[in-house]
């Protein structure tokens, strides 16, 4: 029972890690918390459904196609909801992202309907671990694929030229433009990467929980919690935070109450904010006058 919970908790944790990692990428690049990140997950899942069930492709190619399509959606999102507002107050951008999340939600309902849908599993069936725990292969597939993707994105950011460009833009946009970095492209690439990684999460999640057009809000809420628990703006922090949220959800749901799941996560979040506001990986930034 506990082992089973552990595996499913970690699998869900990796999904949240992908969402919160996407959120952190955007936050680092443009200093904005993206209130439409959960909708990226929902949209990615629906794209996967479209390729898998409506166009009858196998699941792995449809996951890849869905992720690429999400990259395009990310760029469109950036050019419509962020770029025209880049010099406005932060809260104007927050409101525009909220408007965009309504558009995403309603767009999904109009295109794919409001009946919950699902996609194929990457690996079917269940397996027995340590002779006691029945674990779905899909959970293990989620853990493997997301770990690989997160590692890949991390390498891309830390070890490659493109990653350096993105980090330079994130640190100081003006300075980056002075040394000849195309800032628009770099930011667009960050949004694309963020939507890409979150969208894969949607496709992986769909076989376990049905997709519906309102799932973005709860996901977003949990990703917020993961980002803050991990440490704001830290990529490893987002991953650890996501895993923690997944585990709290699994064990809290089993031992305390399933109806209070989100409440338990947020109580943990509030405690974190009280006693370690910088999160696990964050460093306290001195406020400038």
């Amino acid at each position, binding site marked *: 029972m506990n082992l089973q919970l552990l595996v499913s908790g970690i699998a869900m944790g990796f999904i949240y890690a992908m969402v919160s990692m996407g959120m952190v990428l955007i936050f680092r690049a443009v200093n904005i*918390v993206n209130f439409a990140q959960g909708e990226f997950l929902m949209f990615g899942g629906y794209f996967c459904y479209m390729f898998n069930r409506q166009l009858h492709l196998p699941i792995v190619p449809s996951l890849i196609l869905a992720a690429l399509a999400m990259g395009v959606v990310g760029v469109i999102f950036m050019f419509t909801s962020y770029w025209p507002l880049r010099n*406005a107050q932060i*809260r104007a951008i927050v409101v525009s992202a909220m*408007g965009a*999340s309504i558009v995403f939600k309603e767009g999904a309902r*109009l295109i794919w309907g409001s009946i919950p849908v699902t996609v194929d599993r990457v690996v079917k069936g269940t397996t027995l671990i340590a002779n006691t725990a029945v674990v779905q292969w899909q959970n293990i597939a989620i853990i493997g694929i997301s770990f690989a993707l997160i590692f890949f994105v991390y390498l891309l950011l830390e070890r490659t030229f493109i990653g350096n460009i993105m980090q330079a833009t994130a640190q100081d946009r003006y300075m980056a433009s002075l040394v000849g970095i195309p800032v628009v492209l770099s930011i667009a690439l960050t949004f694309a990467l963020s939507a890409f990684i979150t969208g894969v999460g949607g496709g992986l999640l769909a076989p376990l929980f049905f997709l519906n057009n309102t799932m973005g809000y709860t996901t977003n809420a949990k990703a*917020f919690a993961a980002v803050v628990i991990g440490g704001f703006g830290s990529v490893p922090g987002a991953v650890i935070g996501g895993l923690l949220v997944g585990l709290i959800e699994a064990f809290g749901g089993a031992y305390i109450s399933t109806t209070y799941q*989100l409440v338990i996560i947020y109580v943990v979040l*509030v405690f974190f904010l009280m006693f370690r506001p910088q999160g696990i990986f964050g460093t306290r930034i001195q*406020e400038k006058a």
Partner: protein
Amino acid sequence: MVNRQINLKNAVFAAFILALCLSVPGFTDSYMLRVFNIAWITCLCVLSNYVLLGMCGQNSFAQAGLWGVGAYITANVVMKLGLPPLVALILAGLGSGFLAFVLGFAFFRLRAYYFTFASVGLMTILNGLFMNWTPYTGGALGISNVPSFSLGSLVVKTEKANYYLIFVVCVIAYLLIKKLYNSALGRSFMAIRDNEMAANCLGINSLLTKSIAFGITGILCGVAGALYAFLSGYLSYQTFTYQQSTMYLIMLMLGGTSAPSGAVIGTMIISLLQEWVRPLQNYMQLFYGLGIVLLMIVQPEGILGGGRALYEKWLSRRKPASTVAQ
């Protein structure tokens, strides 16, 4: 002389708006009147958001939760304790305000974004309580048959009577916020909004001041909750959601954060817009979302900011030498 003219103009304008608002029940059917009633209740919450965000610069998503606290306090006080509705109204305001004030001390140890997250947390926790704490909130079934507002033998039962009650409360709240704007407390709110460190250096206790702002938000939302309970008679956890809080923010940003009238304009436009785009049915929400994004792109300062810029342009074109003459 010029000042007196402007004052007279303002007074005439205010009287006109007041007359227009008071005559609303005269030309609307009861369905539209209910829409207006809900809009004015929402307006109280958006005004509370104005105090916190527009004056004090703190963005919170907990308003709908505090609104719910007010509503559930009212229902419990009237139905379980059997106290008169007026007492319930006051208790709802005080209870919700006290909750916000006390939590403010904890939450405002966090700055900017972190406070916003904590408020999302509070909203989620409150909504979880509304849904699951059956003895006091009725759980998933909610509370039905909350009695109407009454004062002695005067019972406010019809839609029309409710309209006047809610409108009067709104006007009182509006005037109090206007008063607050010019008071020392209001000035210290704005000092914190513009630069918290500088405000601290001037001797403002920013933790206490921000908590007071959050407390005022709580009071306004609590009163709005009580009015909602009296009006609708039925409370469900599905009303008091995070989405509702985001709506308040959208309304305020749409109207403009520079003056309380922005909150009123934004609320009225969005509430009525939802009714006007109803013929679009399936596409209604889609256009609504697109409209928000477009409005933010075209006018990030809100309608009030845009209107003011237009007005100043017009003034300077009409009287280019007016400043010199004075």
